[in-house]
Each structure stands twice: as C-alpha cells, then as structure tokens.
C-alpha cells in the first residue's frame, strides 16, 4: 500500500512538472522584432577597409564588431592596407567589386577615397565611415566630433596659458597628417579658441605624422627657441609621448602642459602616470565600436533602403582624462574587450 501511495505521489508530481513545462513553452514567445532582426543581419557580408590594424583604436573596434558578427551571424572581413594609401585604394576597389552589403571605411585623408565612396554608393553598397571622414558623405559616420576635439584641447591650453599666472602665452600644435580629416577639423576648432583668446600665441604648427620620434624632435627644437613654452597639444597619445619625452629631458614637466587625444588604451594612462602626458581627451574606442556595431545592424536591417538615401552621424563620447581619473574604463586593455 505504501508503495502504491509513493508511486501515485511520484506520478502526480511528474504530471504537475509536465504541466508547468507545457505552460512555460506556451509562454516562450519570441522577443518582439527579434526574428526580423536576425533575418535582416544573418548571412550579410561586411568589409572593413582600415588605415592600419596596428593601431589601438582599430583593434578595439574590430574586436567589438567580430563579437557582434559572430553573435548575429553576419561576416566581417578586414582588408588591412597597413598604412599604404595605394594598397588602400586597391582594397576599396576590390571591396566594391565584391558587392558586399556594407563597406566600413576609415579614410586616410579626405580626398583619396572620395570618388570610390561615390562609386560604392552608386553600386548600391551602403558605406559606414569610422572616425576619419571623407569629403564624400555616405550613409553614416560614427566617430569623433573633431572640431569639438580641437576646441577642447586648445581650450585646455587656454586655461593654463592665459591670465596673469601663466608662464607664457606660447602654445604648440603638433599636427598629424595635414590632409587627414582629424587634422583639418581639429584646426577649425583650434582657430575658434585662438580667436576667442587673442593673447594665446601659436608658436609652432608642424606635423609629427603620428610618429613619436618626430614629435620629440620638433618639441626639442621648439623648446630651445621658446624656453618659456606653456603648452603643447597633439592628435594621438602614442605620438605625443615623444613630445613628453622632450619636455621631460629639458626638465620642464611642471611648466609645459601636454594635451592630446587617444583611444583610451591603458598605454595612454601609463603615459599620464609616467608624467609624459598631462591630459588625454579619451574617445573610448570600445564604446565607439559598440556605437558603430549598432549602426552596422541598422544598415543591414534595411536592405531595401537605397544606399546614400539617408545620412546619419553619430559622435562618440569624449572623456577628459588626467592623473585623477586614469583608471578603470578610461584605460582599457585588449583583453578586457574580449
């Protein structure tokens, strides 16, 4: 009798469980719109033509995009011209010929790909530009507001190098590549600040080509000429460490403020801690990558929309990082993103 009772109980329990399971499966409805989303992005082909994958920002973007692509079933191919403009043109031509669903491009300058981007749009390929724009506007741009970046950096120098307590009003702009979008637009922002602060004196305006040794040489020469220099602003933390080294060698770390921008990699924070840099306007490449990832999805979900018919711009975050906040998410390492 006892056994019968136990069996009955077990049987009832099993039935109850089954019932619950049935109710659950009935409630397992799809998240609204998810099926359409998956359908939109799955199996699509995306090609990325960077300037060079050796840069920290590029590594962060591609890590984020690869994860996104793997999760939602589209492919991302990187065609790295490694800083060679001619190889970049060939990569773009090849990408257009393959007719992918989307081309992502980081322009080495505003002119080189301008016509190719028009061709791509005419061929019905959507184009997303990241961080470095071309003269041709396409479906979308995700990246920095470079005019604001120029304004922020020179504004930071204006804080230190104007007024009665400033060591002098002399500032330096260590440019990157003069035909690059970042350079051209930052210059506009810089000029606005210079106009608003007429006492600021721009004593040198030379391109360091994103190379630290060149930045060091220019800074060393300028420091000889202007020993009372007050501030230096640059365009990439990995290059301005050279300027920092020249200032440190001259023993003027307390006198000269060095401001630059960067992807927010831990190496930049190290440079702040080592005293080579004072302020980095951090554009957080992983977050920039996430914004671009959403833009990729958006563009893939609307295959019937004509390429180039709607133009969108997303400016990413900019955080001012100095030695008080050079920690945590302001200093990412590649292994943090994976």
């Amino acid at each position: 009798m006892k056994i019968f009772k136990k069996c009955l109980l077990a049987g009832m329990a099993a039935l109850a469980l089954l019932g619950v399971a049935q109710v659950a499966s009935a409630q397992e409805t799809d998240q609204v719109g998810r099926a359409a989303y998956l359908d939109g992005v799955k199996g699509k082909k995306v090609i990325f033509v960077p300037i060079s994958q050796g840069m920290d920002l590029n590594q962060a973007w591609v890590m984020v995009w690869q994860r996104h692509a793997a999760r939602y079933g589209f492919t991302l191919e990187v065609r790295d011209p490694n800083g060679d403009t001619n190889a970049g043109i060939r990569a773009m031509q090849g990408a257009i010929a393959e007719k992918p669903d989307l081309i992502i491009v980081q322009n080495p300058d505003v002119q080189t790909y301008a016509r190719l981007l028009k061709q791509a749009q005419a061929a019905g390929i959507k184009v997303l530009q990241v961080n470095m724009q071309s003269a041709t506007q396409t479906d979308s741009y995700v990246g920095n507001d470079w005019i604001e970046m120029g304004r922020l950096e020179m504004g930071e120098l204006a804080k230190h190098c104007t007024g009665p307590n400033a060591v002098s009003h002399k500032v330096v702009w260590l440019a990157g590549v003069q035909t690059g979008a970042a350079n051209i637009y930052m210059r506009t922002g810089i000029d606005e600040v210079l106009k608003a602060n007429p006492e600021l004196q721009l004593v040198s305006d030379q391109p360091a080509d994103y190379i630290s040794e060149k930045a060091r040489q220019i800074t060393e020469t300028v420091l000889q000429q202007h020993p009372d220099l007050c501030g230096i602003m640059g365009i990439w933390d990995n290059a301005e460490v050279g300027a920092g080294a020249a200032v440190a060698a001259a023993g003027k770390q307390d006198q000269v403020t060095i401001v630059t921008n960067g992807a927010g990699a831990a190496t930049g924070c190290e440079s702040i801690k080592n005293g080579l840099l004072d302020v980095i306007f951090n554009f957080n490449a992983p977050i920039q990558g996430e914004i671009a990832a959403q833009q990729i999805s958006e563009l893939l979900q609307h295959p019937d929309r004509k390429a180039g018919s709607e133009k969108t711009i997303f400016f990413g975050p900019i955080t001012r990082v100095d030695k008080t906040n050079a920690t945590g998410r302001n200093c990412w390492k590649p292994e943090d993103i994976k």
Partner: protein
Amino acid sequence: MPGSGKSDDRRLGFKASQEVVVIAISVVLFLVFSATLNNFLSQGNIIAILKNVSILGTLAVGMGFVVVGRGIDLTMVAVMVVGVAFSIWISTWGIDFTLAVICGAILVAAIGLFTGVMVAIAEVPPIFATLAIASSVYGSGRIVFASDVLYAPPDIAWLKFVGNGSVLGIPMSVVIFGAVAALMGLFLRKTRFGRLVYATGDNPNAARTTGLPTRPIIVTQYVISALIAFTAGIIMTGLVTGIDTRLYNSSLIYDVLLVVVLGGIGLSGGQGGVRNVIAGTILVGILTNGMTILNFSYTSQNLIKSVILLGALAIDAIINPRDEQTSQSGDI
C-alpha cells in the same frame, strides 16, 4: 674626426669634392641661421641638432659601410623596428629586459647573416634582396606583435640613461652615434678587413680574382649594418620610451640613403667613408632644425630640402664631371 686619412679618396685630384661642397653649404646655412634666428647658436640648440640627427646618423654609418662595399641595405629600418619590438615583446613574457635586448641583437644578427648570404652567395642583387627581406621582416613582425607601437618596461635604468643621460654635457644618443661613427671610421681605415671592404667595393671581380675572401666580407657587412640598425633602435626606444614599427612605412630609409649619397659615398662603391656620412648628416640636421624654428609648413620644408639637396648634387656634377676615368662599372 676619425678616418681622416688622405689615402683613399678616389677624387683626390679634385679639391672640391662633394663632401667639401656639402660642408660648404652646411657652413653657409649655419651662418645664415645664426645671423637671422634667435637662439640658433645657443649651446642647447646645437646639442638639439646633434641629438635630433643621432638616429639618422647612426643608421647612415651602417648604410655607408655597406655602400662602400658596393652594396645597399634597405632592410635597416625594418630590422631596427622589428629587432627592438621583438625584444620588448619577449620582455612581456617576464624575461629580463637586458636579456631580451641580447636576444633581439641575436635575431637581428641572424637576419643580417641571411641577407648577407642572399647577396654574397645566392648572388641576388642587393637592392632586390634587401627590398624583399625588409618587407618580409616587417611583415613577420606585424603578424607577431599585433600593435604598431610597443612600449619598453618603464624602470630600466640603463635604457633611461640612453634616453636622458649625458656624458660631459653631451647627450648619450649623441655619444653613441659618435662612438659608432668613430669605431666604424677606425675599422674602415685602420684594419685589414676595412681595406678589404674598399677593395671589394672598388672592383669585386678583381678582388675575388686576387684571392680576397669577398663573400665572407660581404656577409659580415650586412651583419654589422643590422647590428648598427638595432643600436639606432635602442637609442630611439631610450629617447621616446617605445618603438613605433610604422617607421618602416615612413621615408626614413630614403633619408638614410640620401645622407650617405649626399655626403659623397658613391653608390658604385669603393669610395668615401665615415667623414662623408657625418657631413651629410650635419647638413640635414641644420636644415631641418632651421626650418622647424622658422615654422615652415610641411610642404615647403620638403620643397626647400629637396632643392638644396638637388643643388648640392648639381654643384658636385659641375665641379666633378663624370668621365671614363672617374666613373666605374656598376655606377648608378
């Protein structure tokens, strides 16, 4: 200056050799800048000029050594950046940095050995062999290191000394450049091996027929130039705390070659020496420094630089016209 012997100048008959023309232009520029620019003549600025050309000059000493032997080494910049980047990369595994630098030097010497064997034994023309090897060395590095910019560990005392130290007020980078140049000058002028390099460069076939070990000589040249390139890379790492492998894509290797040719070491080999390299290096240094002070735009700097350099070559061509006696087979 080392190696200022009178013996080996093939243009001894001409008083105004290319070297003299270059020195004269340097002196003129120096006087003009001194008269017109504030602080140009200051001790600090003169040291800055030397410091700013120390890497270029060191590389040019290595290149000059190869060119004297009628070769050319286009791998130097690739070897410099990849060798140092390799050292930094293996030091991130926890290997002591000094040991890592020694490992890097061994790798670099091995690359130089391979280049030398390709040129001397496989007899691939050096311009093609080194162009191809440069690209494969850089490419391999690019695959292994992932990042373009590699930072050296922060607390290496000797590396800091290379970057910021000085001896008797002269920065270490300049001291190292001077030491490399002096050693090379002595080596070329005073040792038997040095004389054999000239003989090989002057006429390789005659040298071999006479029984000189031309192949080992050529191999040694490439090993030494690779090690000199590595030294230049260490100077750079000391100065700016890291190495930027993208330098391979810059015009640096052509600047190095320019300094060598401008100073008067003919690409046909067998002539010139360290003095010529120093003359060329100093001209480029003065020019760049003056134009940076004047804040000339990038484009106008390049234009002025090329006009002056072209001018130096043109003056030389007028003063020392080439004819059957002065030109050699293999002259480019």
